[in-house]
């Protein structure tokens, strides 16, 4: 009786567990595979429905349309530019600040830490921030993507916590060799922070790449500052409730050339894939860093 129960129980549990896990994997992956299939299927055929995991009428037209040199192609490069520039700048400045507050002897260590940490608890809100951006003449300027979010309190604390785990002797010996704080930071601390910087870089880059609200708010009247996510957003809102190819797309110029094959639905699928791809490619390699980083982040003061 007892042995029977012991043997039956794990089997029941494991089958249940496996079903849940497979279900989760399917529910997570299916939308991607479906989008991928739609993106390689001819637009006029997709309207007929029934595309699941594999394209029925294979075509690359949707991608050709995206990269045909129109607005979407330009938006792609704006997205790349803002991601790269903001990530590099943010990493450098945040870790430099983190280094200064990791120095126990620094006079302003406490006040700086408090001022930064407080920014996690409140923000002035949408309207005052909008006016600030306006007063600084950042509206409809590329800099509005870079400048406002350079320093994040959370990232600063994560990096500082990491620097504090490095052996103090490293900094002392650099100082004895005559290096100033800036030299010490650049040539010793910055390179040693690589693991934590990888995590923070991932967070900043993903945030930049995925961001659309700043475009919407601060640069929507400037066509040549549009980003990939913003283009996708415009397509989404124009075609969410009308799946027919009659829906007017904002990416008109790219589509007119290949109108028969390409519909808003299919081009949306292609942009979704293009905008998800960098993340899908990079992220398996980053996994060990960000799991570690999550744990670092929960290490408190």
């Amino acid at each position, binding site marked *: 009786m007892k042995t029977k129960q012991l043997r039956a129980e794990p089997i029941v549990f494991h089958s249940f567990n496996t079903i849940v896990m497979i279900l989760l994997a399917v529910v997570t992956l299916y939308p991607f595979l479906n989008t991928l299939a739609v993106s390689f299927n001819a637009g006029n055929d997709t309207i007929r*429905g029934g595309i699941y995991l594999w394209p029925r009428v294979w075509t690359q037209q949707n991608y050709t349309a995206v990269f045909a040199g129109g607005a979407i192609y330009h938006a792609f490069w704006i997205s790349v530019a803002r991601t790269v520039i903001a990530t590099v700048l943010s990493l450098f400045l945040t870790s430099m600040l983190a280094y200064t507050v990791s120095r126990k002897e620094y006079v*302003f260590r406490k006040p700086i830490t408090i001022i930064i940490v407080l920014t996690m608890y409140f923000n002035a*809100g949408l309207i005052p921030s909008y006016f*600030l951006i306006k007063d600084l003449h950042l509206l409809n300027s590329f800099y509005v993507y870079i400048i406002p979010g350079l320093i994040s309190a959370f990232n600063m604390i994560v990096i500082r916590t990491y620097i504090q785990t490095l052996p103090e002797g490293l900094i002392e010996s650099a100082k004895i060799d005559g290096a100033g*704080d800036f030299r010490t930071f650049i040539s010793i601390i910055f390179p040693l922070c690589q693991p934590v910087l990888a995590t923070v870089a991932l967070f900043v880059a993903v945030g930049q790449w995925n961001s659309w609200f700043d475009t919407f708010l601060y640069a929507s009247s400037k066509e040549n500052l549009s980003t990939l996510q913003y283009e*996708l957003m415009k397509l989404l809102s124009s075609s969410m409730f009308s799946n027919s190819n009659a829906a007017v797309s904002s990416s008109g110029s790219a589509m007119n050339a290949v109108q028969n094959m390409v519909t808003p639905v299919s081009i949306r699928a292609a942009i979704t894939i293009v905008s*998800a791809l960098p993340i899908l490619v990079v992220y398996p390699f980053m996994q060990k860093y960000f799991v570690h980083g999550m744990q670092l982040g929960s290490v408190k003061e």
Partner: protein
Amino acid sequence: MASTPEIMTSKPSAKAGTKLSVMKRMRGQKQLMLMSLPIMIYVVIFSYYPIWGWTMAFQNYSPAKKFSEQQWVGFKQFIFLFSDETFLRVLRNTIGMSVINMVFGFVTAIVFAILLNEIKNKLYKRTIQTISYLPHFLSWIIVTGIVANTLSVDGGIVNDVLMKLGFINEPIMWLSKPHYFWGIVAGSHVWKEVGWNAIIYLAAITSIDPSLYEAAEIDGANRYKKMMHITLPGIKSIVIILLIMNLGWILEAGFEVQYLLGNGVVIDWSQTIDIFVLKYGLQLGNYSLATAAGIFKTAVSITLIFAANKIAQRFGEDRLI
């Protein structure tokens, strides 16, 4: 023992020393100051200076006028807010969606972490975990696009499956039914974040002393008993802390999902405070009212966060943020 007198004597002098030599130390820290103070000026401009804009909530703000010419109205905007039906509805939506998201988010992440922890095969476990984090890194634009596709009336997989199984005869227009909206938002959050949110519980489960499980096995406890009496109590404190901390963010129901999935038909159930602020402030130009709504949100959040911190400390854990 031997070091005690030394500390006793060195402490007062060190303190006097710091007081005296702050200027001197600053002179030796020029590089540190150059490295940090410009960044601090930046932080003050971008994070602190805009608070000045809160004065708008106490005025009938008009962009054409100078600050000295603005008409001051006291708390009129706030009083108006709380008599405004739209705002009260928006407040209800914000709290409602927040609570649902929180409950679903917690339950699914904990269940997922526990189930994942039962998998012994490393490769299998890792694969599932990798898949589960994936949506966390996608933008809400992509996710809402996927949600809209999935729930679509022509060719959406949900309607397809339900129809093939015979549950419904004709496709349901999910996104046009006001009473489904909160559920759809909660479902989208779960889909996007369940794997990510489970990370912290998985870490907590792995730190449970394995000898507890061994002891329970000797006592004849089965899998469910071990889960109920060891795993769950083992992560109880982290769950409570996170729950309390999340209560602090109750007015942060999000903005993007509701804005992107919402439409004219479901507007009474989809709009949150953030959308209200955007609409009244930037689209209708009622800056004062929108700022007042924003201040209300921030004030409630700060109060709740600090209260939550205090309660969390009482549970014997440090502040989490």
